């Protein structure tokens, strides 16, 4: 069979970090047993929620901004081909080079090749979800190129041979004493008298990275926004490591998901109000860098933009699920989610944890590879309320649950139920028999109910069926 290359395609297997090693319920069980992790997460999510709520309350037009953000993104999705070509044209006019990567393998190959052509054996990296998604660091290492994460949290994760657990604060599962241990074990030239005081730890990272910033000729970043009208790219950050990477090296390579486009320069007025307040709970993040192609005499003189599909076209192909691509990676949905707060980021198995991950990852990979994620939710709706671009995450979760392959026992039970309900006499006798099920007890002993009764009580059967009651009136 040949594949028509124009068909939307999911992210390929065997590369990248969109699939976990085990199902969400299995991974969540371990997380739930980790008291330290739950304390760290509760502290983090509660703190960010509080800050965010306060600064959002300062804006009288928050709901109108959300509506605008949502509508702009819907418009982007409907016109994606023309906007992508417009972005490419503007970036190219300004001296940038645009590359198109159909999936993680192609994106990694493009970046590795670009770095090789510079002759550099080391790259500095700005925190980027897209490059985490495609496992670019692993691809660079395999090619003999050392990727150095420069965001403090990503550095902690990298030095600890760990995985990020939160979109915004990837090392939130680590506390200060763990971070101190990681630095002592893995940071070259670290002061052995290092304490676990956060300013001391931050200063150690500053010292370690300073020389790397000044001596590395290639940087790799993601992008928060790519503006079709002007070819401008924007990176939003706090520490200044982003500015370092985006300004100091000779060559800058930016990997951007194709959904990150906004149509016009003016549209930034919406997203720059939404993103910081929803994300870190600040009126504005400390630093935002914007650049358009190459500026002679200022910043990198070689700029490459890699536009990444890697399953996004498959998400776009589902009208009921495509608004997952509106996500601006603020992580507000993580911080309000009762399930994330108790299970943490690693349980989701993907670089995209929490509610947005529960809808994004299964759509990017195909539902069969992340079939348990749409169930990692109580459907309480807090994520929808928190989302600055109004993604109806609960509705998409329900939609994806319908797409998910069901366990064999559940399929058999549903088939039997359908057969019975088609036959009135059989249905009546089944209802009488159901009374007998009371002896199965509230844990459903002996019934083929899969995982359902592991976490919940079986509802009690009524004393009388509706039909019996109706007949007896």
């Amino acid at each position, binding site marked *: 069979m040949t594949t028509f290359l124009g068909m939307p395609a999911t992210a390929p297997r065997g590369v990248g970090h969109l699939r976990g090693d085990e199902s969400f319920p299995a991974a969540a069980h371990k997380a739930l047993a980790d008291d330290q992790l739950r304390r760290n997460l509760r502290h983090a999510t509660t703190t960010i929620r509080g800050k965010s709520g306060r600064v959002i309350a300062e804006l009288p037009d928050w709901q109108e901004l959300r509506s*605008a953000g949502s509508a702009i993104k819907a418009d982007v999705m409907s016109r994606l*081909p023309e906007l992508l070509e417009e972005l490419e044209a503007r970036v190219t006019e300004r001296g940038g080079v645009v590359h198109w990567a159909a999936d993680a393998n192609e994106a990694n190959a493009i970046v590795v090749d670009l770095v090789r052509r510079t002759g550099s054996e080391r790259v500095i990296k700005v925190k980027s979800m897209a490059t985490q998604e495609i496992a670019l660091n692993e691809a660079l290492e395999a090619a003999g190129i050392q990727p150095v994460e420069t965001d403090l949290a990503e550095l902690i994760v990298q030095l600890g041979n760990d995985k990020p657990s939160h979109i915004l604060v990837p090392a939130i599962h680590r506390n200060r004493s763990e*971070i101190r241990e990681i630095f002592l074990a893995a940071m070259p030239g670290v002061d052995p008298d290092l304490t676990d005081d956060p300013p001391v730890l931050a200063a150690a990272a500053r010292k370690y990275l300073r020389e790397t910033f000044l001596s590395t000729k290639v940087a790799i970043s993601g992008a928060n926004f790519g503006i079709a009208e002007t070819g401008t790219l924007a990176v939003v950050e706090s520490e200044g490591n982003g500015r370092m990477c985006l300004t100091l090296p000779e060559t800058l390579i930016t990997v951007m998901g194709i959904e990150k486009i906004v149509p016009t320069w003016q549209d930034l007025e919406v997203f720059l109000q939404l993103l910081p307040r929803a994300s870190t709970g600040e009126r504005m993040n400390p630093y935002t860098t914007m650049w358009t192609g190459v500026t002679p005499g200022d910043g990198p003189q070689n700029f490459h933009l890699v536009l990444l599909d890697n399953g996004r076209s498959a998400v776009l192909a589902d009208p009921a699920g495509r608004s997952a691509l509106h996500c601006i990676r603020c992580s507000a949905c993580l911080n309000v989610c009762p399930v994330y707060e108790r299970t943490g980021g690693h349980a989701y198995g993907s670089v995209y944890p929490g509610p947005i991950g529960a809808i994004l990852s299964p759509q990017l990979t195909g539902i069969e590879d992340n079939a348990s994620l749409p169930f990692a939710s109580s459907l309480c709706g807090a994520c929808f309320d928190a989302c600055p671009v109004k993604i109806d995450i609960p509705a998409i979760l329900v939609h994806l649950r319908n797409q998910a392959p069901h366990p064999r026992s559940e399929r058999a039970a549903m088939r039997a139920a359908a057969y019975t309900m088609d036959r009135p006499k059989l249905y009546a006798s089944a209802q009488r028999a159901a009374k007998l099920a009371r002896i199965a007890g509230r844990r459903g002993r002996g019934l083929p109910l899969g995982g359902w009764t592991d976490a919940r009580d079986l509802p009690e059967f009524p004393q009388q069926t509706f039909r019996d009651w109706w007949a007896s009136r």
Partner: protein
Amino acid sequence: MSSKDVILGRVRAALRDAPAPGEAPREYRRVFPAADLDVLVDRLVDYKATVRRIAEDAVAATVAEIAGGVVVVPEGLPLNWRPEGALPDDDLSPDRIAGADAVLTAAAVAVAETGTIVLDASPDQGRRIITLLPDVHIVVLRPEQVVASVPEAVARLDPRRPLTWISGPSATSDIELNRVEGVHGPRHLHVLILEPV
């Protein structure tokens, strides 16, 4: 078939239900009162920046007092702002910039509501690198550069210039969400707001 064709083909196939492009509703605030300098000062201080409101003829002396050493300045910076011995950026090497005690620049726009200062690499602000490496960044703001809101700032800026939006000094919250000022960028931000002439 190029990857561009593959991706655009996939995207077009994905959109075969032809979702209608739509004009976004822009019912959010787009008209604002005059910028309130007190709000700007309040927001800047909240971000741990140090703010002074001074007369223009006091800039050079104030900068000398804050920096207490070598101050890098962009070549287009007004001469009367420069402290004695200021080091103009005539393509200085990164090491020399990093070795300076402070950098002094003008700004393009400031946003009162968010406490944000935007640099656009004009001659009085210079290359991005000079405001990145020294530990102290001193910015001189003229009152007429201050707008109330983000939409007004976006409207004033030219996206073809490299832009740096700064809200307070460098900060991280990556260790147990404790805010620590200064990881990689300048650890101290001083804003000098000029008195109206």
